[in-house]
């Protein structure tokens, strides 16, 4: 694809995605897209299927069906590490830093070769984006606070030079001040050219970072449109987000 003709096809297309936990049917056919350079908020209340959607896209669910195509490739049958190597970066809700490894080693685990068409990251660049991490590069992940761990998880995923980030509830459990920093970080990444799918319950946080919103409820997408439209649509907000 030459840079002169911008690729209008979405970067990520999810079609009729279904997933199960054991015998519990969680996703009943999710459809969503993320365009190049776009930040999409996946909204919904707890248990609606946000985390499961992210995991299913990433190949982390045992049983799933439906289509997931990323950058023009069908990834629906690939194992997680192959999906990650194509440029999909996943930042889980529960952080999952490697507590026994230092900050530097955590970043090393995420390192992948540079990828054309995606910003590339080095530890040095990440330390300028997250100055806190620079100060504690020799510290073990387990001895960091929750907010610091959240930053490290994000930085670690960026080391894989992804073109699309899946951010699962980045504001959950963080102090309001750290939440503000997180929103700034997401905007900075968008400016770098990254696409982001961010799951959120916090409407004001989503409004501050996202261009578009998809609202999920009981394993299906119930609303899809510009963020502004969601903010103006009282019925959808009350029905699916309970705000």
């Amino acid at each position, binding site marked *: 694809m030459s840079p002169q003709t911008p690729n209008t096809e979405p970067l990520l297309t999810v079609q009729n995605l279904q997933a199960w936990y054991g015998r519990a049917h969680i996703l009943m056919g999710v459809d969503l897209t993320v365009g190049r350079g776009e930040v999409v908020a996946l909204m919904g209340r707890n248990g609606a299927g946000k985390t499961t959607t992210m995991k299913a896209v990433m190949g982390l669910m045992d049983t799933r069906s439906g289509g997931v195509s990323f950058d023009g490739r069908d990834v629906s049958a690939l194992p997680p590490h192959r999906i990650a190597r194509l440029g999909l970066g996943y930042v889980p809700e529960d952080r999952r830093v490697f507590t026994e490894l230092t900050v530097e080693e955590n970043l090393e685990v995420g390192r992948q070769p540079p990828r054309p068409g995606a910003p590339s990251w080095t530890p040095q660049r990440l330390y300028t984006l997250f100055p806190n991490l620079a100060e504690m590069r020799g510290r073990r992940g387990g001895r960091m606070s929750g907010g610091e761990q959240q930053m490290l998880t994000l930085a670690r995923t960026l080391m894989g030079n992804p073109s699309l980030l899946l951010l699962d509830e980045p504001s*959950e459990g963080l*102090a*309001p001040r750290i939440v503000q920093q997180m929103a700034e970080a997401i905007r900075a990444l968008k400016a770098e050219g990254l696409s982001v799918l961010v799951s959120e319950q916090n409407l004001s946080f989503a409004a501050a970072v996202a261009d578009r919103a998809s609202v999920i409820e009981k394993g299906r997408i119930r609303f899809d449109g510009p963020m502004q439209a969601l903010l103006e649509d009282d019925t959808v907000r009350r029905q699916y987000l309970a705000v």
Partner: protein
Amino acid sequence: MSRLVVENLQRSFGGVKAVRGVSFSLAQGEVLALIGPNGAGKTTCFNLLNGQLRPDSGTVRLDGVDLVGLPPRRIWRLGVGRTFQITATFASMTVRENVQMVFLSCRRRLFGLWQPAVGCFRDEAQNLLERVGMGAQADRPCGVLAYGDLKRVELAMALASDPKILLMDEPTAGMAPAERLELMALTSALVRERGLAVLFTEHDMDVVFGHATRIIVLDRGQLIAEGPPEAVRADERVQAVYLGTAA
């Protein structure tokens, strides 16, 4: 009258002082919120109160009885109930059996070898579940419940021992906004009905300012503010270290 009196609590981990001289009290009918940035020492504080951790110095008294050094089980029997940040129920049992388990424990019937457990304290458990709005789901296995419902079961389990004090660690974490307010409204109602006192930690400021009768703020192991919600919200130091400019 103060039920729980905490004086000059200290605890450090490998040279790092996690809690430095925290003192506060909790009276019957109060809903006291403990807030602060991540890493401020809230969880440590909680664990010092319920006996999970032993303080380096300081005292914790419940109705004049010193709790320091007692194992969590004893503290629970003296009347300090708790709910967990991450729900922990008995996943292989039904909702009612979970509550029955607590009744069996507080009436000291755990070692019975003959009488089937399903018949023990069945009505008491059912009544409690009705009160928290889980009566209709009493026969479902806890393993399949929605998150918000699990939190209600946890509340019922905490109430079954008829505690004087209830410690709630991030009681609404992971819930949708409307569910959060509903759960806290239920908690406030129970505080009035049963003459309870609640101490809770929380990050959702709507919940804190909507339901706490008093707030204490912790930063780097020390209390930096205490008072009614309005005063704490206006406090400049609290804004600087925790609330930020948006609040």
